[in-house]
């Protein structure tokens, strides 16, 4: 970050609407912003549509960084439910834990949670990549449609339930698989890919990686493309 171009916004002095519109204007000019005293408030930094750096110095509440397209967010704290909902592009890094439904309906970009994630992480994901440094909760990857989830720790019950497409990699224990999910065959190429991806976030994890994919038995469409009928590989 270039110091000269970095602005500060303090949430003890701004109400939510003012804060979000100020942040949006800074982002339009590509100015980096540091957000002070977020106090775990909801709906912070939503709808930012330009490339810029935004670092939030503390914990955020629900739906933070949602509907964004382009910015790189760093959250130096915890996040509440629905972080990065419908993220179109860009990246979000959470230094501590995230609540339930992290990266729900995310379409592209990267979300990385260094701590644990709550229930329903990556629910209805439609693309992009979700990386969880710790454990993940119940119904992870529920109805996932595309993209990848990498979980370094353990994952809760019913992982990948009713998943259409996409891949979930798990480093730790799998509590139980959901409906229509199965353990796929993992290649060395994929393990290399996981390692490289994690190295980008300074996570060193040597684990017995498992790959979860859809069995596609719940598929009832008769208009599938030939490619869609084969199982997804890298």
């Amino acid at each position, binding site marked *: 970050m270039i110091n000269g171009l970095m602005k500060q916004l303090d949430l003890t002095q701004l109400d939510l609407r003012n804060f979000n519109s100020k942040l949006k204007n800074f982002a339009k000019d590509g100015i980096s912003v540091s957000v002070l005293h977020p106090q775990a408030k909801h709906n912070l930094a939503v709808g930012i549509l330009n490339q810029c750096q935004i670092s939030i110095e503390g914990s955020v509440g629900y739906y933070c960084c949602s509907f964004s397209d382009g910015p790189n967010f760093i959250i130096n704290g915890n996040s509440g439910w629905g972080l990065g909902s419908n993220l179109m592009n860009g990246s979000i890094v959470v230094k*501590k834990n995230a609540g339930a439904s992290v990266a729900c309906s995310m379409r592209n970009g990267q979300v990385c949670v260094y701590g644990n994630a709550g229930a329903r992480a990556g629910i209805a994901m439609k693309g992009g990549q979700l990386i969880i440094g710790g454990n993940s909760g119940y119904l992870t990857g529920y109805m996932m449609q595309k993209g990848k989830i990498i979980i370094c720790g353990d994952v809760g019950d019913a992982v990948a339930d009713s998943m259409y497409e996409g891949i979930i990699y798990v480093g730790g224990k799998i509590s139980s698989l959901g409906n229509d999910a199965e353990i796929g065959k993992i290649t060395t190429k994929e393990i290399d890919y996981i390692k490289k991806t994690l190295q980008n976030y300074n996570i060193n994890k040597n684990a017995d990686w498992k790959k979860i994919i859809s069995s596609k038995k719940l598929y009832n469409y008769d208009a599938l493309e030939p490619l869609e009928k084969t199982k997804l590989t890298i």
Partner: protein
Amino acid sequence: MCGIAAILYKNNVLNAPVGPHLVSMLQSLRHRGSDSTGVTIYSSNNKSNELIIILRITSFKYDKAVLKTNLTQLIQSQGSQIQEFNFTENYIKLIITNIKNIKTLAEQIKSIDNLEIDSIGSNSQVIKDTGDAKDLDNKHHISQISGSHGIGHVRLATESIVDVTHSHPFWAYPFPDITVVHNGQLTNYRSLKRFYESKGHKFQTHNDSELIAVYLADKLANNLSLKEALNQSLVDLDGSYTYLVSTKDGLGFAKEKWSFKPLVLMERKDVIALASEETALRQVFTEEIDRLEPQENEVMTWKI
């Protein structure tokens, strides 16, 4: 959607600022519901043989003097003595000694028209009213109450009407000091209510959350520990729920198998606080400490 919050000071600290903390936590959860707000606070300034009774008058038409005579006669006929009789607006706070049977006493009081019992306990008092936490504090001066622990609730009504009787916390009639706040809905409420009614329990409201209080109190009366009772509730109660229960000397929570309703907690050496959202915990903890989010089928308890 509702908001729940709890705070407990460990190491037997009995005059901690529980009241002001609960008010600021519940006020920051105001967006989760502001139909009504209520708290249970456990204070220490009470002798062992005394009971605190909180009553509420539900009608505008009553004669203060007549009500006082009736209540005094009724309590004395049970062999108990009134030590303190406080009238504030439509609330009555009684402190009485020499209680023989809480259940009979509660039933006798209930037989008086337009009178509801909010709580009976040795060190607890339930204070609930319509409006948000600021309204509650302005009317009942919650922030002047200190104690060891307490729970609170902001309500967005889904299951029954909006009035003070149907607002949380629910006292586990007729078990002293046990109260519950609940976020969620119970789907097997009617069948369980019928079961407990057949066992002789009398429900005071039509709210599903009252059942949790009665359920837990019944289990505790059958010599289960609080943790065992909470674990058993995960099997017996159906629906979506994250609830907090407080007893004379502790509190606990249970979260159902779907992990539908939120709860986060922060713990320091001297204090533990729980709430629906982290923004409420930030009212208590100004320093950066680790936040824990309980997951599905999780139960935890603490003692003062």
